């Protein structure tokens, strides 16, 4: 846990260095059973990887920086009967985390999805438009603090970050430095 962590009600951090692996397989195939997470949900596995059911028959795996080869290997080791593709998209996507109580005020300025607990509880994952950019959103609360991971095409990253800062200005948004463990992944 970073000692510099701010207590502000709204914080933003660039988490782009995290490993990101994109997996495609049958929606209800063998690999799906092995990954154990359905479309629309995210769970953390025993290796500290956040497994996100990002689309029907699609998964996004977020893991500590530099761990792409192991993550890919682990998925490829599953002997699925159906065609499976595993693509390391670490370089292809930008990742931002916003945290704090005021995230529920910020996100509705840029995204049309209902952020209430009944629609998008902790562990919910969905893909929608955020500030007009196609974005994977994962609600990933930590220690009772609301928190969201936002994942988009890399080239839009700077724009999305700026748009979130602009939207958060009225709530006093603070920028946090990236720490590899601030994704709540176990060391």
């Amino acid at each position: 846990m970073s000692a510099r962590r701010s207590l502000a009600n709204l914080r933003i951090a660039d988490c782009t260095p995290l490993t990101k692996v994109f997996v495609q397989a049958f929606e209800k195939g063998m690999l799906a059973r092995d990954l154990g997470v359905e479309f629309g949900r995210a769970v953390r596995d025993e290796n500290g990887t956040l497994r996100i059911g990002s689309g029907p028959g699609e998964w996004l795996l977020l893991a500590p920086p530099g761990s792409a080869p192991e993550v890919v290997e682990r998925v490829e080791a599953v002997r699925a009967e159906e065609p499976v593709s595993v693509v390391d998209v670490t370089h292809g996507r930008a990742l931002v985390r916003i945290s704090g109580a005021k995230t529920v005020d910020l996100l509705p300025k840029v995204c049309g999805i209902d952020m209430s607990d009944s629609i998008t509880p902790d562990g919910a994952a969905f893909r929608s438009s955020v500030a007009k950019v196609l974005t994977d959103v994962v609600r990933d609360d930590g220690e009772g603090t609301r928190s969201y991971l936002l994942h988009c095409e890399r080239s839009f990253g700077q724009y999305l970050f700026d748009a979130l800062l602009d939207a958060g200005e009225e709530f006093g948004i603070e920028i946090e430095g990236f720490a590899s463990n601030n994704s709540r992944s176990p060391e």
Partner: protein
Amino acid sequence: MILLPCPHCGPRNASEFRYAGEASTRPDPNATTPEEWRAYLYIKNNPAGWTTEKWFHRTGCRRYFTAERHTVTNEVRETRLPAARLESNS
């Protein structure tokens, strides 16, 4: 803005989708006449009422699906996956 019930993601704002036109059947390209082929390209039913059409969930699951929509009220009564897709992806 109308809500379109995406068969994967649930109801979403229509602005997340791309309308991909009336559902149509592609003629056999090796046995088609110019008239048949161009009817496939250009002629529309364009009803004022229920129509079957294709949509793409562009800022969502990025899947195509079929919807039955009323073109006067914009009410959507059914959305479903392309039939073949369901079988091959079970």
